[in-house]
């Protein structure tokens, strides 16, 4: 059983210009867990993620990371110890792949040799050919490769926690599937704690240990995929309808071996 939560939100609220983006949310992410937050655009899921690294500041409530209240921490140091994978990469276009990956260790004061070794290690980890890719600029890579670099960059300073903001949203389904699986494996192997945002319920169900559903700034449900169906919230049921319908249609379209 997991011990103390690595990230904990307690009654957290945040408004922008009078509109509540996050409304009294309490959520705990346990050590080693991969928790996916699902919601439509404007649901407040990205704000919730940003609150954890103080990219935005909460109006009220308390957020702790590894047991420490984030308000007591220097935001820059806080961010350097948390991996962050941005929507569609967020790579620095004027940095080579190696420079992008090595940025957080560099900010932390690591030497060039150490950084170089770490970059090689990470390229291998995210399954990119180092010799081929390390000196390239981001624009010379495919979308999937860019996002692999994004993951490598997030992991470079050996964080315990990784935050992912719709990391695979802009990718084609095949790449997305492969990358999702690869990340899931990494998450387990490196004993990471991951909080991931997605608007795709199917992806959340397939990858996450637990799924949190947000709508209009409120947290409607948090449960393991198998238990999510027990929710009687209409919005959660609505979200689950799409994957269900797909399964039904797929089973008729692609009959399994058992039927033969």
């Amino acid at each position, binding site marked *: 059983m997991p011990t103390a939560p690595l990230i904990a939100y307690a009654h957290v609220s945040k408004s922008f210009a009078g509109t509540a983006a996050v409304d009294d949310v309490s959520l705990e992410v346990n050590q080693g867990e991969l928790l996916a937050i699902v919601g439509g655009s404007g649901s407040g899921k990205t704000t919730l993620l940003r609150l954890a*690294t103080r*990219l935005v500041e909460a109006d009220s409530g308390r957020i702790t990371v590894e047991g420490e209240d984030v308000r007591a921490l220097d935001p*820059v*140091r806080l*961010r*350097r110890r948390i991996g*962050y994978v*941005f*929507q*569609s990469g*967020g*790579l*620095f*276009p*004027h940095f080579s792949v190696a420079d992008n990956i090595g*940025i*957080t260790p560099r*900010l*932390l004061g690591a030497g060039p040799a150490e950084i170089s070794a770490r970059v090689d290690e990470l390229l291998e980890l995210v399954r990119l050919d180092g010799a081929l890719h390390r000196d390239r600029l981001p624009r010379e890579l495919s979308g999937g490769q860019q996002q692999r670099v994004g993951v490598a*960059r997030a992991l470079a*300073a050996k964080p315990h926690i990784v935050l992912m903001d719709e990391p695979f949203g802009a990718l084609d389904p095949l790449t997305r599937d492969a990358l999702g699986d690869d990340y899931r494996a990494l998450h387990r192997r490196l004993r990471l704690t991951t909080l991931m945002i997605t608007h795709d319920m199917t992806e959340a169900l397939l990858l996450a240990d637990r799924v949190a559903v947000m709508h209009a700034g409120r947290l409607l449900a948090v449960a393991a995929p198998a238990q999510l169906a027990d929710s009687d919230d209409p919005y959660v049921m609505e979200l689950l309808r799409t994957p269900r319908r797909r399964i039904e249609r797929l089973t008729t379209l692609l009959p399994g071996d058992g039927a033969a």
Partner: protein
Amino acid sequence: MSIFADPRLSEATAHLPDYLGNHVRLSVAALALGLLVSLPLAIAARKRPLLRGVLLSFASIVQTVPGLALLALFFPLLLAVASLTLKWFGFEFSAFGFLPAMLALALYSMLPVLRNTITGLNGVDPAILEAAQGVGMTPRQSLFMVELPLALPVIMAGIRTSAVWVIGTATLSTPIGQTSLGNYIFAGLQTQNWVLVVYGCVAAALLAIVVDQLLALIEVGLRRRSRLRTALGGIGIAALVAATLIPSLARPGASYVVGAKTFAEQYVLSALIAQRLQAAGLSASTRQGLGSNVIFEALASNEIDVYVDYSGTLWANQFHHADILPREQLLAELKTVLGRQNITLFGELGFENAYALVMPRKRAEALGIRSIADLAAHAPLLSIAGDYEFFARPEWAGLRKAYGLAFRAQRQMQSDFMYAAVASGEVDVIAGYTSDGLIAKYDLVVLDDPKHAIPPYDAVLLLAPTRAHDEALQAALRPLLGRIDIAAMREANLRASGSNAESSPASVARWLWDKINR
């Protein structure tokens, strides 16, 4: 004769190291100062809309001030500041030449750099900014590692625009005493030497193109992360600056500086004075094309050593007297007031260059006009033209008052074009100069001034305070005193207004020296 064999061309080229060197040093210093101020301001303003608005409006307003006016304004401004520092801190600095020119040009260079830096920084993708924050960069690290590098192409484009503007506008720093490629243009305009004008324009344009291309090389190098190109561009700029520094370091500074105002007669006389000094074994150079007030202040602060002024001009403009004294009394009075500033009125050259109302002889005879008093009756139907100064001068106010003159229209023109304008009937009367050779050439007549409303304008030699007891200088100048009569000066001026190879101020000065020694 091929244009390349024209002696004016080789004469112009002889000045090139000096003019170009000064021009490059001025432009580089102004641009560097401009960048030093604009870049931090732009960075500070990028997230402060109020400051940004104020800065950009200020820079835009500066840009709408004509370059010549901006440069001219910095002279009295610095003069005032210099007198304050003298009073408060016991030191003063030169408000003449380099400093006002550099400050005005630096101000002029700000707009493109400010605008492009702000635009470039604000144009960085917000997602990239968030990523910079997210990976743990401090605002400073984000600025230097991400925002500035990404905005660099836009910033460099602004710097290139600035550089071209500054190099072009620097040609206007000649009247405030800073040598530049503008010396060719101003000298050429005043003496109708079009070869010089074109030479100056082409030289300034070539310099601007070369600098622009070197900066473009740096820009491309930075954008493509090509160290070779960046280094080549940087080396090119450094080489250009070094090349213009070497000749001026190697050449010993001239010990005497002869000033000249902005018209042909002054160019000739300053050349004549410089030649006399050189003949006496003194080293001398000229600073030409200086504005009336600038040249007097420059002499008073020992920036130049000697120049020719006119008694009436000093009396009315420099000392603001409205009354008009008889000739001898005026000179005596001037001597006293100049002496209070330690300026020596060394003596008269022997001719007078007064303002005079001039019109075509035939027209004057047809209308029965002989004097300004006769003219007054016809004035409401006539138009008058004067140089850029005339209508603002107290003599004009005095003339109008004395004779009740009211013209149908008044126009300002370049003095050398006035005579042709009045001869062709473009205007009816001009405020010309009595020593101008064009009066005879176009068969014009100088109208009498029976009420003596126009003060006497004896050409006088003025010496700077430090030269008050300089025997070598005074001995070299003494042979000029009382020797140049109005006929000789008119002919010299006529020669200088020609556009052949013998019409350069130096050639005319040699001719004039031969003439008065015959």
